[in-house]
């Protein structure tokens, strides 16, 4: 199990590094945020629902945390 | 007049609008509000009244408890001013430059040498020359937040304050209500039409035969405004006669004399009352060239000679 987890984490980090490394085909121009600007594509959409969920899981399970700030959005200035 | 004494204004229903009337800024004030609800009209009327009184008290030169008095009695000391006063002074500075010195808020002292009651007068040239020593924005030190003036100089928001109050009250009421409305302080007018409303405001204009440039205005004697403003400079009743010539009450700050050959009144129609008031004053200051000036600006106007 631990090995699988480590493998997954490595994969995530590799993927993120690739994305961050400035590969020219990763990402979009500021005028191409039409879909990313939709409410349902906001990572913090439904914040109240997630807060309610997190409160339940926090009080019923031994784990907490994980979700953080959001990014993406309309890229507007 | 019970309601006047109680609230300071009178509220009446006229056609499909509520109209609040009160006295302020040395004349009658009217606020027309396109709403059916009297309670809303009442709320807005009291807001309008208090804002008008606030501006009047703050910028009147006849009081001894305001910023204008503080500046005028500063005796050469710098006076720090609040944001609103700073914006007005900044505006005064800019229009002074734009008018090449013809519009000057320090020119008020010159009025001491003149009486405009339709009488024949013999001006005291020496006194005028003396007063001119105390006039001129270029002698003022203004750094954007504090003002320093030589002793004896005075500022006067007379040519700005009322127009400013009209725009300010109209803007504030619209922000508060989103309603179409018209604010009229003794002929200085601002109209606002709510988004999506088909309303326009009909404003009566004196002597309609001379109204120029009112596009599509078949309704003779009226200007039809959506979002706009009207301001008048000059006063047909305030003049004096020197050497048989009629001189209006607008003084040229450079000569200390009323402008010769100027129209009796100039009315300008444009987007804000502040802008209209300044253009009208500039037209009067242009003397015989008033209409040429107004035509060059491309604004709608009305001149009485």
């Amino acid at each position, binding site marked *: 199990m631990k090995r699988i987890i480590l493998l997954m*984490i490595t994969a995530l*980090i590799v993927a993120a590094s690739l994305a961050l490394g*400035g590969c020219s085909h990763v990402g979009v121009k*500021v*005028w191409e945020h*039409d879909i990313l*600007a939709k409410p349902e594509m906001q990572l913090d959409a439904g914040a109240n629902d997630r807060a309610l969920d997190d409160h339940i899981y926090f009080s019923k399970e031994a784990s907490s945390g994980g979700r953080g700030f959001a990014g993406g959005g309309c890229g507007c200035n | 007049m019970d309601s006047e004494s109680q609230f300071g204004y009178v509220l009446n229903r006229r056609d499909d609008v509520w109209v609040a009337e009160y006295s302020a800024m040395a004349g009658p004030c009217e606020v027309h509000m396109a709403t059916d609800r009297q309670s809303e009209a009442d709320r807005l009327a009291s807001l309008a009244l208090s804002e008008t009184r606030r501006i009047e008290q703050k910028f009147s030169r006849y009081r001894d408890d305001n910023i204008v008095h503080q500046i005028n009695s500063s005796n050469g000391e710098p006076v720090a001013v609040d944001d609103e006063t700073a914006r007005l002074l900044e505006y005064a500075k800019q229009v002074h430059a734009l008018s090449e010195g013809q519009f000057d808020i320090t020119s008020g002292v010159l009025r001491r040498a003149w009486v405009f009651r339709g009488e024949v007068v013999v001006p005291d040239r020496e006194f005028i020359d003396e007063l001119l020593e105390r006039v001129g924005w270029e002698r003022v030190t203004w750094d954007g937040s504090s003002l320093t003036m030589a002793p004896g100089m005075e500022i006067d928001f007379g040519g700005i304050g009322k127009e400013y109050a009209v725009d300010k009250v109209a803007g504030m009421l619209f922000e508060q209500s989103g309603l179409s409305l018209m604010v009229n302080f003794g002929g200085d007018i601002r109209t606002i039409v709510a988004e999506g409303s088909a309303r326009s405001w009909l404003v009566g204009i004196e002597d309609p035969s001379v109204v120029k440039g009112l596009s599509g205005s078949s309704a003779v004697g009226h200007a039809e405004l959506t979002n706009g403003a009207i301001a008048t400079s000059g006063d047909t009743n305030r003049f004096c006669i020197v050497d048989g010539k009629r001189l209006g009450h607008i003084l040229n700050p450079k000569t200390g004399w009323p402008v010769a050959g100027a129209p009796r009144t100039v009315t300008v129609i444009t987007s804000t009352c502040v802008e209209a008031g300044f253009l009208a004053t500039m037209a009067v200051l242009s003397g015989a060239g008033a209409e040429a000036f107004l035509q060059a600006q491309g604004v709608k106007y009305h001149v009485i000679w």
Partner: protein
Amino acid sequence: MIVSTSRAAGLVLLLSLSLFVSPAFSSDPPETLADVDSVLASNGELDGKVVLVDFWASWCVPCRISFPWMKSLAERYGEQGFVVVAVNVDKDHNSAVEFLKQSDPPFTIIYDSTGSLAEKYGLEAMPTSFVYGRDGKLRSQHQGFHGEDTSKFETQIAELLRKEAKK
């Protein structure tokens, strides 16, 4: 515990990497209106005018907020030779049309759904607007739309109109 430490270290490394990624896309916007002119095939309609080229999209909230203000600018300064060219970068043409139906601005609209004009201007924010003087030369650019900047922006446009008034 060693495992956890190495995981955390990996993440820190990743974060610091990202700090050095430079914005590789930026380019200089065109100095003249030639590109806009050629899209519009305008036969010199923009000559001698002060032109605001505004890039916008219906999904961009600040763009939508800026419309009433630009509309009022166009209405107030139109007679003096001020023109707004609004370049729409919506991929979905219908969304743009839907928004324009409500707003109905007196602008010239360019539909740049492929982003070719946006690419030439090297946009870095939405909206971005470019102001050209009466001589057709780029005078300034503004990124984003901030309510409190409007009077400064307007003063600048008015100055351009006045200083370069037609001789």
